[in-house]
């Protein structure tokens, strides 16, 4: 992201991703086409990964978030990429990342209750190549940083 206009576009859309390009054009005193072009460039460069709606997880039936820190068994058949691909399509898994340090992969999942937490733990444990899982539960409605991490 290089121009001051890019920064302004990102600022307005981070606050309200549905703000019209025309409105941003009016505020910034630019043409709507200019705003659209800058927005498209930000998407193409990967600066903007997308946009989403932020939901109150308690209102949709979740009681908390769990972090799963995973150690994997390395082999030709098992790669962290393959495991990540499996993890990120699992229901309730909302963030997955490879890590360097104590563990190999970190996953954040939303949980309904303790039973559900245990169920997710077991599902992750069944993925080929998982050696060990340690996990933490965070109770209550936690706001992480929606612009980076969804919640």
């Amino acid at each position, binding site marked *: 992201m290089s121009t001051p206009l890019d920064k302004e576009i990102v600022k307005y859309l981070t606050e309200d*991703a549905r703000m019209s390009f025309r409105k941003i054009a009016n505020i910034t005193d630019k043409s709507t086409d200019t705003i659209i072009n800058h927005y498209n460039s930000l998407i193409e460069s990967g600066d903007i990964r997308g*946009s989403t709606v932020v939901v109150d997880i308690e209102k*949709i039936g979740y009681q908390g978030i769990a972090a799963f820190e995973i150690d994997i068994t390395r082999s030709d058949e098992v790669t962290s990429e393959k495991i990540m691909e499996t993890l990120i399509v699992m229901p309730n898994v909302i963030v997955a*990342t490879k890590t360097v340090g104590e563990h190999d992969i970190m996953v954040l999942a939303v949980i309904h209750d303790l039973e559900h937490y245990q169920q997710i733990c077991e599902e992750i444990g069944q993925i080929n190549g998982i050696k060990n899982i340690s996990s933490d539960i965070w109770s209550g409605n936690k706001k992480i940083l929606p*612009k980076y991490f969804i919640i």
Partner: protein
Amino acid sequence: MEMARQKIDKIDINILRNLQRDARTKYSDIAKQSQVSVDTIIKRYRKLQKRGIITNTTLLLDPRRFGDEVIANFNIDVEPQSIKEVIAFLEKQPNIKFSTHAMGEDNIFTIATARNMNEMNNLKEKIQSHNMVREVKTSIWVDQFLLCPENFELEPLMEAKR
């Protein structure tokens, strides 16, 4: 435990699913898909906001493109009686984006971003120097982390009681 879970229907789910994928989806596209009028979608969207189910819409950004080259999580073991005090201390650090009391091996979980490894290391040392902190374990996030807002399960809410 009190359940705050609210009842929603297929149209609400369609709105949420579309906006989870792309918050800029046009109301008219959602209306066409749901086979209802654009007005209905707008009314339902506003109702979802009013009920607090939708808190806002936002961009998903790549922190590394905005100067935060390093992302890490810290698992912090502290004296049990000082959890609140340490969380308050962590929340004052500008690099720390999230801190919570965790029920697991360690009692605090934190996510931080920094401009470079040096800055992240300085942060770790600062946390370690707190007199109530026993141990700090670091995991640095590598490559692009994956996000999937569509993995929230919404369908069970259709049967839920208000």
